[in-house]
């Protein structure tokens, strides 16, 4: 199952791309997980000017091109990334069906 963005998240990413004057056609949202955090892994989001690599999955969600390396994809497939702008701050929420436990700091999970 693909990784998707909510409409709000896609809108925010497009807004960042515009604000940063990044080339729209070349810019991809790289989504991944990295080791560390009190519960094993943490999520990461990068805006990159890269084409799909051999070990990447590529998806399109609401007009935003997403890249994810195969290793991260094992943990992230089926995830919807949402965006919140609330009292607690502004940022991206990962609704990951594969996460089985998370830590209280909110930035890492195990699967």
């Amino acid at each position, binding site marked *: 199952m693909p990784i998707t963005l909510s409409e709000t998240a896609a809108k*925010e990413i497009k807004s*960042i791309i515009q*604000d*940063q004057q*990044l080339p729209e056609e*070349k810019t991809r949202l*790289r989504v991944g997980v990295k080791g560390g955090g*009190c*519960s094993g892994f*943490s*999520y*990461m*989001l*990068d*805006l*990159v*000017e*890269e084409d799909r690599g051999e070990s990447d999955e590529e998806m399109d969600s609401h007009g935003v091109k997403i890249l994810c390396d195969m290793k991260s994809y094992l943990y992230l497939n089926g995830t919807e990334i949402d965006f*919140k702008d*609330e*009292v*607690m*701050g*502004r*940022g*991206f*929420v*990962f*609704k*990951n069906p594969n*996460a*089985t*436990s*998370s*830590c*209280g*700091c*909110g*930035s890492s*999970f195990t699967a």
Partner: protein
Amino acid sequence: MLSFTKKTDYALIALAYLAQRGGAVSSAREIAEAHQLPLALLMKILKGLHHQGVVQSARGTHGGYKLKADLQLLSLYDLLCMLEPDQFASRARRLETPLLALHYKLIRFLGDVKLSDLVLPGRRIDVPLEAVRICEPRKVQNEPEERTGDLSAAGVL
């Protein structure tokens, strides 16, 4: 002036753990081991939260705690009042303006922060906007370099 202690930190971690487990019971030891927390302090915190009705306890060999309160109805201010009552009672009377005004502004803010938004997966922020990196185009056989490191340094925020 307001400050958060380890008690608050550990309480939030414990609530997040219990929230993730749904209706399942988790022992204090299990939570402490999962997150490398001091067991004695955690037990004291959970006992306090049980007394306040935030969690409920189950006795026995497989005993422990599970969530009782609806975290959407509790704010961070509510939790702090349970854990650090001195912060919001006697200290406020000793403050003078302008700190007193700031103190109450902070209390208002803390009252707007729901516990569900801090600890529930799918509700809490996993990647703050400031942590989204903008990477330079990949050079041949080199790793991508960060342009500025993050959006805050780039002047977006």
